């Protein structure tokens, strides 16, 4: 009769070391790393260098914010690098008033060009459409996200190469370029501001809205979410649309920063972005993670790369280090999950 003699007695909420680490390990690691670099290299801790780091990571950061939504549902998006390239080219073409004006620079061409916000809308539109297509393929055709977005990775890159058949598009109007290169109050780079604004917004959505709650639920246990009356398919599709939005926005900022768009832009971004999210404590198994963690994870990777550059470590070794960190972060995640299951 007594199938499972679970004690009903109240278990006191004992200090959960693993839970605490899972939450603050990225931040602690970031502080330790910054301290180490500051001691080893005096140039590291100057405001100029710190803002440079933030500016360098702001595009990764925008993408990582979107990727957090995807990974929270236990999904993955490998297509973002390609989507960034494609969306960036479309935005560039819009800004230049057409693809034939690709090399035109300066005032003579302004009659044919469109304002920066139309370029932004174009990039975001392409991103949304790309994300929506992939979301539909995942939820309707029931193809795993890994496969769908691997296909997207190839297809969007192909679209970008086709679109840019004649080479890069460069030389945008000054307001557009300011979005990537300008500074506010003489200090804060505009991309950093865009990144942090959207990070705060995304944090608010995940933490305080009904939709955010549904994202965690669908990621944590899709069957239980369905049986609780949530529309699992719509929620799952939506995170890829959100990812697409951030890919478009990131493409726009990247165009602006480089004052140029090309078909090979964004290559390999998916790895760095997924690494940022996972290092920030978001579980690849879904249902666990925060935007705060992702921001810390993004900065952590930026600091690591910046510090290594300042210390003249070769970029090949940097890649090796990033690879090892990803594996360690996922190993820790697996360990934390097995503890949750046992609970």
């Amino acid at each position, binding site marked *: *009769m*007594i*199938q*499972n*003699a*679970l*004690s*009903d*007695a*109240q*278990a*006191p*909420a004992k200090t959960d070391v693993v839970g605490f680490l899972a939450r603050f390990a990225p931040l602690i690691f970031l502080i330790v790393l910054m301290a180490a670099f500051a001691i080893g290299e005096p140039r590291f801790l100057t405001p100029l260098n710190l803002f440079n780091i933030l500016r360098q990571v702001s595009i990764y950061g925008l993408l990582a914010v979107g990727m957090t939504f995807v990974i929270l549902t236990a999904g993955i998006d490998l297509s973002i690098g390609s989507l960034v390239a494609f969306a960036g080219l479309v935005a560039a073409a819009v800004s230049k008033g057409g693809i034939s004006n690709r090399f035109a620079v300066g005032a003579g061409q302004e009659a044919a060009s469109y304002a920066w916000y139309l370029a932004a809308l174009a990039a975001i539109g392409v991103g949304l459409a790309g994300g929506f297509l992939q979301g539909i393929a995942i939820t309707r055709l029931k193809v795993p996200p890994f496969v769908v977005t691997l296909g997207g990775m190839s297809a969007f890159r192909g679209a970008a190469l086709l679109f840019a058949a004649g080479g890069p598009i460069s030389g945008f109007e000054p307001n557009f370029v300011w979005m990537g290169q300008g500074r506010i109050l003489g200090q804060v780079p505009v991309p950093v501001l865009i990144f942090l604004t959207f990070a705060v917004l995304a944090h608010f959505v995940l933490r*305080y*809205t*009904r*939709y*955010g*709650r*549904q994202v*965690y*639920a669908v990621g*944590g*246990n899709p*069957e*239980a*979410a*369905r*049986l*609780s*009356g*949530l*529309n699992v398919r719509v929620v799952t599709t939506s995170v890829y649309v959100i990812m697409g939005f951030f890919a478009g926005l990131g493409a726009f900022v990247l165009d602006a920063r480089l004052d140029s768009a090309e078909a090979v832009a964004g290559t390999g971004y998916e790895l760095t972005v997924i690494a940022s999210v996972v290092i920030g404590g978001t*579980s690849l198994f879904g*249902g*666990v993670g925060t935007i705060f963690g992702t921001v810390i994870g993004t900065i952590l990777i930026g600091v690591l790369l910046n510090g290594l550059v300042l210390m003249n470590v070769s970029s090949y070794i940097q890649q090796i280090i990033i690879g090892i960190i990803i594996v360690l972060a996922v190993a820790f995640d697996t360990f934390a999950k097995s503890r*949750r*299951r046992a*609970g």
Partner: protein
Amino acid sequence: MTEPLLRMTLIGKRFPGVQALDNVGLEVLPGEVHALLGENGAGKSTLLKVLSGAQQPDSGTIEFGGQRVTMTSPHDAQRRGIVTIYQEFTLAPNMTIAENVFIGREPGTGVFVNWRKMAVETRAITTQLGLQLRPMSIVRNLNVAEQQMVEIARALSMKSRLIVMDEPTSALSSNEVAKLFRIIRDLKAQGLSIIFVTHRLEEVMQICDRYTVLRDGRLVGSGSIADTSIDNIIRLMVGRQVNALFARREKTDPGEVVLSVEGLTRRGNAQDRNATVLADVCFKARRGEVLGIAGLVGAGRTEMARAVFGADPFDSGRISIDRRQVHIGSPRDAIRYGIGLVPEDRKQQALFLALAVRVNLTMASHDRISRWGIFMDEEAERAMVEEYRKKLNIRMASPEQLIASLSGGNQQKVTLARWLALRPKVLIVDEPTRGIDIGAKVEVHNLLFEMASSGISVIAISSELPEVLAISDRIVTMREGRVTGEIKGEDASEEILLSMMTLSGKTA
């Protein structure tokens, strides 16, 4: 008296919190069909796992063919000539019949497989079984009965002396059962022994020579089928005193019909496209009553609940709420019409283990605790959690602690609270007290009574007959996807229910 082929003596096996087997014995004679009987949870499966080497007993001895043996693994048991055919087949669906029969023992030299020899030997065995199956057919394309024959062929190819069949007839049509029985008689004539586990007592009378009955992990009777009757066996299976711990609710007058299900039918499951999952299921649930659904494992109770709740599709049938026919295509639809479901597997189907108690409790009620349907109103949410913490006496340190850190009983209360917060008209609870301790069970029972008293129509599915008897105002029994009877709670007893659950189409 011939020497038994198998003699298991004083077998004991303990799992955390439960004595699964308590000095159980089992003797099987050469060339006999032996029925192993008992209710759900009586210890049959554990005993068979010990016999097949899948689990090691804490105490006791096993003698096979006159020799004391220790089964270290299923492979070891097979090597000695004991083969178990489980309910869920262990065939590789994308391989041929011949490959399945000889899996792991393919004839041939070195790393090469002698396909011709394998096919010829497979053909010899299937012919011996009176089957017309081509050895090179892919198993996936066979029906359940044929797949079962492949399992039997595999057992024969291993030169088995004892074949254990766990519920072999549960997925078969009556024609197929007759065919299986013919094969069993053939095997018997060849001197093989068979342990036959089933819930269908008519079949026991038809095919078995002797029986052993387990109850609550103990041996309660064994003997020759010729000297007993179905009634006698049911008495042995039930046997215990009605459990005084579960107090019955005072009798109440049932209200009007809230939920009416007519002709609910579904064919086909993951294993077999033609399996009967639900066949013409009809019942009514009334306001303010607890309707118990009794049936053995596999009777279609959970499938019925999931179909009514929109969690699984069904082929035909009508569902009406308040006498109005409704279309339920998803759990969202069901919730809109006021139906809730507490699923049987808490961890897999109900809980978000990585999330807080608060979030788990309010998951189905976001409409009630959000502003403009967009922003969570955390104040209202905390008030809701506090309300149900008090009402259901949920013991937790804080609403913010992870649900995984609560005991099973408190987790179940949170799941119940999730549905109560929706104020449903109909609440289906599937195995509401599985895996929780006895004190929490009584609490959950009282909660079900309170829900019914507040006007909810509670439909309770349980595999524990004392529980069904204690909580139900009315009981519907099911077997093999069909409703086999209906009885008032006060008129029912374990004996009556068991015969309604095991015999076909009899209404008490």
